[in-house]
């Protein structure tokens, strides 16, 4: 006679559970595919955004560094030809650390002591912050707050007590405007402003004197020509005047000055009608359509460069053009080609800069609008996944009941569903991540061109993919927890009755 001993049902090993789950997926491939697609779309979108942002940021970094390098010569030319504005002085010192050369320079120019500098810098930082706030404000609000004053004049204006009261009142009245600091801090700053301004003026005067001295040593030369000697005598003159110019920068500045001079010479040559006609007939366009752009395109090749130099020589012989002073490196075909290439690079960088103009704020510097879009789309996709998983669980109530009749434990049922969700989420996440990175990379290639390859941030991209996959798994698993909990808690007969 058979006896009925009641014991505890042992739990199923994990491997067996996985195998049973895979079985289930294999059979329901279509419905599983739907879940995978939903997860995939969500992760593709996420990785697309993330990878674009990552590539953008790394390109931006490289662009910024490179642009700074390339512009140094032109920067110095402007520095030495015009006097500094108060605003310029304040913003320059605001971002500098005590190690930066600008720090020492400013101190020297304004004859500021070690004790005075830190407080001056603090004041400058605040001034810069307030200035940027006011400059970002739209016209209507600005008018409401400070009427027609702009820039530093705002600080002068608000020095008057009555004006400050009016300002405070209007600020409180304006909603959706977040002032940089508290009103009390601003008022304290305004009180300190005369002292800060005085110091800034000292710096300005110092710079004025220095620049006057340098200009005196120019002689007949233009600033640019003088700068070609930045590694030599002229550089010494600059240093004597009090500006800071280290050897390495001096060398770069000299090179760039030379390059700029040669560039200018070439670009100005198309003013001559005869040369324009030559270029026009070469490119098969009207002489009036010849621009610097087109000239550089011709000069981009060895053959084009030597051709144009020939024409230039002829023009020089005929007296149309003043000859270019012999220089080192000499202006031959290979040099011209190199100049053309640099020109192209600079244009690409400028284009990149323009594209990045709108990137600020939000998550990871994605931009406010993009962050919002991302959040909403993740939410929508999460809901979609939940729906897909709920449908899957609901349609299988009968199967769950049957399994329970055969001795499945509650935990096993739960595990089966959550496991399935995790697997599908992982697959969908992986596929989506791959697609997203491809799309993002493609778009960035189109936008930035070759710059992308030079700065390809592979590790960051991989991390983006990993994040997306993990997110996919979490989303899918979280969506399936609730329905599978419900399913596993049913008594077998109740579950069958629902069918």
């Amino acid at each position, binding site marked *: *006679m*058979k*006896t*009925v*001993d*009641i*014991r*505890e*049902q*042992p739990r*199923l090993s994990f491997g*067996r559970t996985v195998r*049973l789950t895979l*079985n*289930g997926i*294999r*059979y*329901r491939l279509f419905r599983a595919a739907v879940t995978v697609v939903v997860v995939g779309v969500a992760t593709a979108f996420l990785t697309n955004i993330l990878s674009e942002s990552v590539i953008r940021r790394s390109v931006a970094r490289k662009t910024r560094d490179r642009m700074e390098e390339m512009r140094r010569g032109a920067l110095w030319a402007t520095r030495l030809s015009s006097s500094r504005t108060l605003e310029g002085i304040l913003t320059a010192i605001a971002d500098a650390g005590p190690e930066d050369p600008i720090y020492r320079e400013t101190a020297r120019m304004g004859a500021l002591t070690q004790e005075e500098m830190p407080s001056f810098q603090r004041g400058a930082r605040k001034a810069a912050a307030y200035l940027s706030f006011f400059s970002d404000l739209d016209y209507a609000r600005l008018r409401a707050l400070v009427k027609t004053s702009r820039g530093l004049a705002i600080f002068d204006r608000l020095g008057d007590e009555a004006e400050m009261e009016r300002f405070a009142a209007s600020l409180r009245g304006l909603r959706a405007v977040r002032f940089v600091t508290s009103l009390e801090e601003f008022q304290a700053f305004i009180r300190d402003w005369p002292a800060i301004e005085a110091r800034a003026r000292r710096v300005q005067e110092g710079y004025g004197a220095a620049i006057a001295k340098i200009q005196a040593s120019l002689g007949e030369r233009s600033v640019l020509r003088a700068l070609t000697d930045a590694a030599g005598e002229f550089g010494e003159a600059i240093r004597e005047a009090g500006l800071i110019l280290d050897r390495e920068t001096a060398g770069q500045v000299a090179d760039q000055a030379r390059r700029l001079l040669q560039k200018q010479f070439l670009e100005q040559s198309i003013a001559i009608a005869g040369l324009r006609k030559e270029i026009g007939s070469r490119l098969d366009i009207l002489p009036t359509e010849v621009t610097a752009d087109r000239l550089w395109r011709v000069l981009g090749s060895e053959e084009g460069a030597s051709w144009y130099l020939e024409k230039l020589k002829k023009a020089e012989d005929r007296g149309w053009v003043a000859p270019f002073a012999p220089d080192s490196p000499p202006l031959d075909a290979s040099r011209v080609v190199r100049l053309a290439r640099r020109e192209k690079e600079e244009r690409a960088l400028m284009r990149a800069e323009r594209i990045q103009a709108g990137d600020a704020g939000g998550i990871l510097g994605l931009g406010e609008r993009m962050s919002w879009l991302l959040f909403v789309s993740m939410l929508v996709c999460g809901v979609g996944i939940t729906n897909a998983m709920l449908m899957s669980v609901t349609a299988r109530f*009968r*199967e769950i*009941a*049957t*399994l*329970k*009749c*055969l*001795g*499945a*434990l*509650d935990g096993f049922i739960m595990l089966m569903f959550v496991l399935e969700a995790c697997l599908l989420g992982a697959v969908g996440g992986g596929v989506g991540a791959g697609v997203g990175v491809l799309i993002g990379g493609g778009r960035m290639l189109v936008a930035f061109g070759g710059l992308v390859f030079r700065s390809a941030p592979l590790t960051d991209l991989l991390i983006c993919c990993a994040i997306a996959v993990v997110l996919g798994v979490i989303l899918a698993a979280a969506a399936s927890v609730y329905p599978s909990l419900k399913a596993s808690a049913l*008594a*077998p*007969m*109740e579950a*069958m009755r629902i069918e």
Partner: protein
Amino acid sequence: MPAIDPGKPRIEAMRDGDRRIIIRTVNLKKRYVMKGIVTEALRGVNVEMATGELIVVMGPSGSGKSTFFNMVGGLDSPTSGRVFIDEVDVAQLTATELAFLRCRKIGYVFQSYNLITCMTALENVTTPMIFAGVGPDEARERGMSLLELVGLKDRWFHRPIEMSGGQQQRVAIARALANQPAILLCDEPTANLDHKTGMEILRTLQRLNKERGVTIICATHDHRMMDMCDRLLWIRDGRIERVARRDEVHVSIGSIDGK
């Protein structure tokens, strides 16, 4: 939770006497409430079934026959009353113990087969064995021999949708026998089978009952089964209308071919 020790059962079964009551219900009541309408499926059922009995349960549809089956098999819990399987109150078992019961001690054959559609016939039959912890090779062997028993050895790799109703029923029966249960609950096992196959199934069940002492409780209209059984139970309107032993009832079996 007590540690699982498969060697020592938590609740000892009674061993005194060969024949004992394996299933006992005391004043079993079940009511369903759906959208405000109360349905009393069982209104106080008291039965006792001994080991090794073959009991046929009869009753019109809606009489509470299926509900009674669910109670007895531990698939559903009553609103009031008790079910004792081997003098163990089913309501007092933990979830894992219930799972053990369903897995190894009770076999179910449903009217709607309830096969798992994503598994092959063999996988369906071996699933209870997997839950019981049997190794895959042994499970496959036993599964194949069970399928042979029901005459489906050549179709072990077919899925339920590829089989006829009768074949699915046979797979369901094979699955119910997977872990050599002590109690077999069958809901219309031969309804969709032809005469010959039905006869085979019946003979198998009879053999199990006589040689191995498996208690079989069947809900059926098959006269051949009624002929083989020990007791008959009539349920109507949620109550036992009549209980009779086989020899008290006159069952005539007709046949088409004169056998």
